[in-house]
């Protein structure tokens, strides 16, 4: 019964998301595009954070390389958009394999510091390798051509681009969700709760952490590939360590224990930022207060707290 109501709410939300371009202003079409892309970024991060228990401070490296990959392919090769996204995912996967291979052997704070260090290195490369990345200005001036698969879509139209993003993020979210529910996903949760017991059950914990890291990096790369045409630029800011903090904040804000938590976190983050910055410059102060309150009083995040409340009330 309760699950049915929750499913009904989810269906309504999806219907609402599909309807956005017909009911909302251009401004909010942009806002919701951003929410979806950053939501996918945060959900990919939560696979390693909320499920596997690995706090990475370098997740923006994969988001950033995804955005550069799509920008570069559009500028130099003019491939269809879907092909660009596949290149973004591939580039992010390779980078995640390299960084992950060197990082997953360490635990907790050492893992966090190492991923931060690698993230800063990738940022430095994008910042200084001017001939390829155009340095601090980033890559701009690319135009989206066709979508691929023979579909005739006007990607330059924000409403169309919103629907494309919605469709791709939905597919990616379903794939991530299936992974979370699989036997592999169960092992990831077990690793978060007790890695030693998992290794004494006969599994190489390092391998599982690496595979999770690569999957998370690949989907962050996909989110990066979606953000470049949206922002019309791939710039070093997307690789900056402060960008690595965003999925952490979103996951905590929405709730790390639920698959959709990071998406709720992304929505809360982007909407609050939009609304609060119209009143005050000190958006970071307000965000800081909200996060402190969440961590102290609502450890399960917005979604987790809401679901707990619902289960209590409807008993």
């Amino acid at each position, binding site marked *: 019964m309760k699950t049915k109501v929750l499913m009904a709410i989810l269906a309504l939300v999806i219907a609402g998301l599909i309807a956005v371009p017909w009911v909302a202003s251009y401004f909010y079409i942009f806002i919701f595009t951003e929410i979806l892309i950053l939501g996918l970024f945060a959900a990919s991060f939560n696979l390693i954070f909320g499920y596997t228990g690995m706090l990475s401070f370098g997740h923006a490296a994969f988001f950033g390389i995804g955005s550069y990959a799509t920008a570069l392919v559009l500028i130099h090769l003019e491939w269809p958009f879907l092909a660009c996204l596949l290149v973004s995912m591939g580039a992010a996967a390779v980078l995640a394999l390299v960084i992950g291979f060197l990082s997953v052997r360490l635990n907790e704070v050492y893992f966090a510091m190492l991923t931060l260090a690698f993230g800063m290195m990738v940022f430095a490369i994008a910042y200084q390798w001017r001939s390829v990345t155009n340095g601090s200005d980033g890559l701009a001036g690319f135009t989206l051509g066709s979508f691929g698969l023979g579909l005739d879509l006007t990607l330059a139209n924000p409403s169309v681009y919103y629907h494309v993003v919605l469709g791709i993020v939905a597919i990616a979210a379903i794939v991530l969700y299936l992974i979370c529910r699989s036997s592999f996903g*169960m092992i990831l949760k077990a690793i978060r*709760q007790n890695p030693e*017991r998992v290794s004494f059950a006969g599994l190489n914990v390092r391998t599982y952490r690496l595979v999770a890291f690569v999957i998370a990096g690949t989907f962050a790369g996909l989110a990066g590939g979606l953000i470049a045409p949206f922002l019309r630029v791939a710039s070093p800011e997307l690789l900056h360590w402060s960008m690595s903090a965003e999925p952490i904040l979103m996951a905590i804000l929405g709730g790390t224990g639920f698959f959709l938590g990071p998406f709720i976190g992304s929505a809360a983050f982007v909407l609050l930022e939009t609304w609060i910055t119209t009143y005050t410059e000190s958006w970071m102060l307000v965000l800081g207060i909200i996060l402190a309150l969440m961590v102290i009083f609502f450890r399960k995040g917005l979604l987790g707290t809401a679901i707990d409340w619902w289960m209590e009330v409807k008993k």
Partner: protein
Amino acid sequence: MSNPVLNIANLTKRFGGVTAVSDINLEVMPRETIAIIGPNGAGKTTFYNMVSGRMQPTEGRIMLDGKDITGLPPHKISRLGVSRSFQINNIFPEMTVQENVEVVLSAYHGHSRRLFNIASRNTAIQQEAVEFLTRLGIDSLKAQRAEVISYGDKRLLEIAMVLATQPKLVLLDEPTAGMTPDETRRTTRLIKKLADSGDYTFMITEHDMDVVFNLADRILVMHRGEKLFAGTPEEVKNHPEVRVAYLGEEDDEAVEEANL
């Protein structure tokens, strides 16, 4: 005459200048239950840590079924058939009791590599998990979150997880430590039944001598890292040095003196 499951030769572990385990030799035959006893600091846990791969031996050889497993990492030793429990509870607290066993079973059957199955509908694994819980008498707790069940039940759950890897050799590290007398009796009976079933080879460390004498076919007595004596429970009971060093005769005298 069958071959030993475990053959340990000259096993030694030194931490800097301290020798925690010194030159232990031991053969464990299939389907026997061997107990390792000794006072705190005798080196029992270090010994276990080497056999299960948690620590590298400084010297010596560990052969499992004729295969050298010395210094292999825990997951490889587990794959080869050594499964262990820990002195402190070592479970997955946020999962249900049944899921705890399912994790171990999916690792054992290789389902853990499946990215797109639905774990909660893996009925073969679920049935098998319930079978192991039934064997330990805790199947009625299967839907409970593991962190809320009693201390004794958690220890039984851990034994169920240890058995779920179908091990050639089961290492139990103080299985009844911290249990109430009732729980201790229940656990001893269960281990006895499992040992009598002939499916398992057990190596047990234990402080409770009643449990040891009840379960063990053979006992290895360790003292300050060294083998003090090895023999049947009867021999151990009657061995003068063992009585002094371990069975607490000195302690009993001290207690009696204190009571005077």
